[in-house]
């Protein structure tokens, strides 16, 4: 499997650990089986630095963003981009007639299907696999799976943008905007630029790079970045803020004006016409 597939197992391991807590922010009963073989090893390898609480808080934030985006019934198709070992189609309460597309590269999708089948997992909505190389033109594959660009969409890109360059992240947002009917929404995360440049993050970042999964893109001006690529931020949250792991986040939330702060942006956005 690709190195990024191991990242998917790492995320699954983190979700398994979260699910087993007394104060779990969510429960993902399938996560433990999806984390093998490398997930828990990577948890230890990348231990510390707030990663585990961040992964949990981000997952919960996006769970909430999905439920909020679908609440008024205006959106009935959801695309999980680079879905990895995401099990939202199996664990969230979906409104009727919602289609969930899971896009990721073929070998990962096959391995995930094999494991979910072995567990007898049954999706709670119309779930469609979209095997695609996300570094190439993948929209044709999404359309082939039934996606309808004339209807509003909720795009979810969890733990994705930092694996891209700034240019690629911008292109992705533009591509999603171009495929978005009015009323479409986007929920995702962006890392802070200071965080990626901090000498104190360097040992961890060097480790990720050596493992073939470097973290590259981050910005401390997410509103501008999002706006420049066809979207408008409707919610911008940092871990530790109310509704985003308040009480679980072991760091202070820094005022926006504070120089040098390590930012982890949780973002909801709406498409901008034109």
């Amino acid at each position, binding site marked *: 499997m690709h190195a990024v597939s191991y990242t998917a197992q790492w995320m699954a391991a983190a979700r398994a650990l979260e699910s087993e807590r007394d104060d779990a922010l969510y429960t993902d009963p399938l996560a433990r089986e999806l984390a093998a073989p490398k997930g828990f090893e990577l948890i230890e390898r990348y231990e*510390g*630095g707030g990663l585990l609480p961040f992964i949990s808080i981000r997952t919960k934030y996006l769970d909430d963003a999905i439920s909020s985006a679908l609440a008024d019934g205006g959106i009935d198709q959801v695309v999980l981009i680079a879905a990895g070992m995401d099990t939202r189609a199996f664990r969230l309460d979906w409104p009727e007639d919602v289609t969930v597309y899971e896009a990721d590269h073929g070998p990962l999708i096959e391995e995930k299907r094999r494991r979910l089948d072995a567990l007898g997992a049954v999706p709670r909505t119309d779930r469609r696999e979209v095997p695609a190389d996300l570094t190439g033109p993948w929209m044709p594959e999404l359309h082939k799976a039934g996606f309808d660009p004339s209807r509003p969409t909720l795009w979810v890109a969890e733990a994705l943008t930092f694996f891209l360059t700034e240019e690629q992240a911008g292109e992705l947002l533009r591509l999603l905007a171009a495929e978005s009917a009015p009323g479409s929404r986007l929920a995702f995360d962006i890392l802070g630029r*200071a*965080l990626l440049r901090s000498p*104190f993050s*360097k040992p*961890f970042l060097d480790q990720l790079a050596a493992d073939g999964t470097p973290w590259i893109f981050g910005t401390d001006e997410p509103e501008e970045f999002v706006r420049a690529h066809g979207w408008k931020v409707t919610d911008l949250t940092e871990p530790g803020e109310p509704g985003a792991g308040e009480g679980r986040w072991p760091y202070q939330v820094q005022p926006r004006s504070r120089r*040098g702060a*390590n930012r982890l942006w949780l973002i909801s956005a709406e498409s901008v016409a034109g």
Partner: protein
Amino acid sequence: MSSSVDTQGIDKVRDWILGRHPDRTELAPDVNIIENRLVDSLAFVELVYAIEDASGREIDFDAIDVEDFQSLATIERAFFS
């Protein structure tokens, strides 16, 4: 500059670190706070702010030298002398 003021400054930094670790009551000047994970990568920015508050000096984030932040002794030498 009186040495008592300097001592007070580094004491504030020590108190800040100990405040994050209720299980610890002491922190010797030469204990490596990074290797011992007393301050992790995300908490470091808070340490920098704590040093700024205690020293009254602004720290340039673009010119940070990790070596200055290894222990209370190196912090004292870099920011309180």
